[in-house]
């Protein structure tokens, strides 16, 4: 059993949860636990059922995807304050990439079942969390578009 106060404090330090009303924060803390991982530890696997949703407090997670012949490509890193495992809440509830801790990691995590139950039973909680998840995902979508433009790619050099 963990100290709820420290979890609330940790949540408060993050972009994701800061600004939520104390009640919701406590509600969240009640179903959350802190989580630690060492560099190299695989947190979730691309394509596997997604079981945990979380917020990074310290450290860094690399989101990787396997490209045949090019190997594992890191497409995004998740920094303190940012969320991971949103697939847990969104069908088909499978991880869209592989998450690997690349720096000693501290995170607040929520288990699949507990979080879903809480959200189903508590409209206010749902109303508070979903917009933040949408914002987080939208942010990634925009960033991905920019990445897609490959802005720093060298000019295609013709024979001339």
């Amino acid at each position, binding site marked *: 059993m963990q100290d709820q106060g420290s979890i609330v404090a940790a949540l408060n330090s993050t972009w994701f949860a800061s600004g939520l009303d104390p009640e919701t924060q406590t509600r969240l803390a009640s179903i959350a636990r802190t989580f630690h991982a060492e*560099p190299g530890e695989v947190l979730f696997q691309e394509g596997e059922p997604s079981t945990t949703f979380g917020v990074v407090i310290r450290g860094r997670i690399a989101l990787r995807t396997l490209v045949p012949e090019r*190997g594992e490509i*890191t497409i995004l*890193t998740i920094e303190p304050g940012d969320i991971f495992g949103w697939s847990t809440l969104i069908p088909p509830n499978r991880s869209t990439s592989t998450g690997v801790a690349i720096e000693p990691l501290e995170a607040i995590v929520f288990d699949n079942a507990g979080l879903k139950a809480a959200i189903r039973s508590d409209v206010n909680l749902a109303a508070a969390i979903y917009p933040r998840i949408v914002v987080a995902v939208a942010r990634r979508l925009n960033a991905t578009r920019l990445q897609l433009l*490959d*802005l720093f790619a060298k000019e295609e050099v013709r024979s001339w």
Partner: protein
Amino acid sequence: MVMTSSGRGPKPIAEGPAFLARADLQVLLDLLREDGRTLIGPTLDAGAIVYDEIASVEDLPRGWGDEQGPGRYRVRRRSDERLFGYVVGPTSWKKWTFPSLIPLTKGTRDGHRVSFEPAPIDAPKLAFLGVRACELAALGVQDRVLAGGPFTDPDFVARRAGIIVVAVQCTTSAPTCFCTSMGTGPEVTSGYDLSLTELDDGFLVAAGSRVGRDLLERLPLRPASATEQYGAAAVVANVRARIGDPVTADGLHDRLLAQLDHPRWAQVAERCITCGNCTLVCPTCFCTTVSQSTDLTGDHALSERIWDSCFSPGFAKVAGGSFRSRPRDRYRQWLTHKFATWLDQFGTFGCTGCGRCITWCPVGIDVREELNAIAPAVSLAPEAAIVEPVAAAPNDFVAARVLATRPETPGTVTLSLTGTDPAFARGSTGQFAMVALPGFPPLPISISRFLPDGIELTIRGAGPATKALAGLQIGDQVGLRGPLGNNWPLDRAVGRDLVIVTGGIGLAPLRPVIHAIIADRRRYGDVKLFYGARTPVDLHYRDELERWSKQDGIDVSLTVDRAGPEWHGRVGVVTQLFDQAVWDASNMIAFVCGPERMMQATATTLAGRGVPASRIYVTLERHMECGIGLCGHCQMGKYFVCRDGPVFSIAQLGDNFGREGI
């Protein structure tokens, strides 16, 4: 009246306007020829009245007039013997003041040594015969653009100085004329040496300068009768009445710029062939490009300046493509420049209402119709353009020597140059140099470091010219002109928190900023450098980056677009480095450099994080050829990027920044 303005004691015949019999016009021509001048005047050739070399009155289009309309021109016989009974034709005087082709620079390469020799300017002594009011105005516009400073075109200045102007009052007009609207005519009022008003049997003559007065005194004149004077005034008045006022010039600048998204642009683009005729027949269009040629050895190169047009595809080309890829963008660029941004740049319209672009548009697009359709109302006065004086004529380069070369990333190298033009010692952050090798087009390249007796340039070998530069070895020479352009406003950063956001080779122009800060670190608050690259190996100045963060008190954050497992740094676009950072933007200023799209995203994010547009600065890349605002290629709205930039605040650029096709 001009004649009394002359300082000399008046001679009897000069008391009022004087009369010259048509039979005596040859005397004037002879006087001008005796003065060693080549006469340029109207003559009938290939079914049009063109300006060309003439020897005598016999060469003039006696008894010929013309019919003009949109996309249509025909000469026709007049019922009288008038010598100037036509309206302006296809030729404009810029053929002599600003020729379509002039040699610029001879470049030679001898082993690793290079040298550049400006082509000598040869300006003939000319006399223009038959210059109309709208054409005098056009010469005036050229004077402002090409000789008004801060930079001047030496070739134009020399040619202009050698010309005597004999003007003629318009006694007839074409349906394409609109000098009245542009305030340039039809009355000849200034800018001439002599003016003629043609009457049935001769001319009313007036002097407009000392030179003109001297000529006047040597002509067989008699005082003009009151009837003649009245008649002369009357015909010109009739012309004004006939032309009317087809375009409301008052407030046109703002009306036009307020309509950058008008659907008409797309409609006119369906008719416009973007052939460029309008710009080349225009008496004021001054855009040029430089073409290079070499011999088979490549050791001898010649660069020549030729007329270019904003309607041509290559005109706005940069590495990433053309800034004005769509015909509608090109037409909008031309029209808004002529009737709006030209005012911002030169304090005058670029159009004198001569109507050539209407007559000689092969598909008959009428600029007056377009203006009235796109910009039909009224409003404010323009704001003045920013000007940062530097550097010399477009055709000279100072050879510098390569002291050291340092590979930065695959395909990118930093050259340390020494023996540079002393001007570089006075250079400052954000500026660039025009860099030339014989046979290659000179390129604008940001200065990535200022050394005591030289500079560093960081170059990515993309095209042939940049490859040639990137391939330079120690001891090789290269031609430089500069430093050019304005600075990053470091003074505004003093006492503030500074955010520097950049990507890829975009760090090069900001490197001197960081050097400057480190040199006087205490004057600035927090300095954050957010730097993104494509992959880890594409990060420039890696050793310096480390030093900056470890010992120089710069808060450096790096990110890459994609990386393999070996990379433990951040992956993601540069904006993600700070779009959630907890910071106080109230005292913050931001410098941004990178691909234009990246700068837009960054500016948007910064604004979203509370940094005011007036304190977000970007540096623009545009196709540059001259580097000093004379070639026209790098125009963006009312600015020439090379001369007024390349550093601009988002506030300055307004919604032109990121707008397609500007």
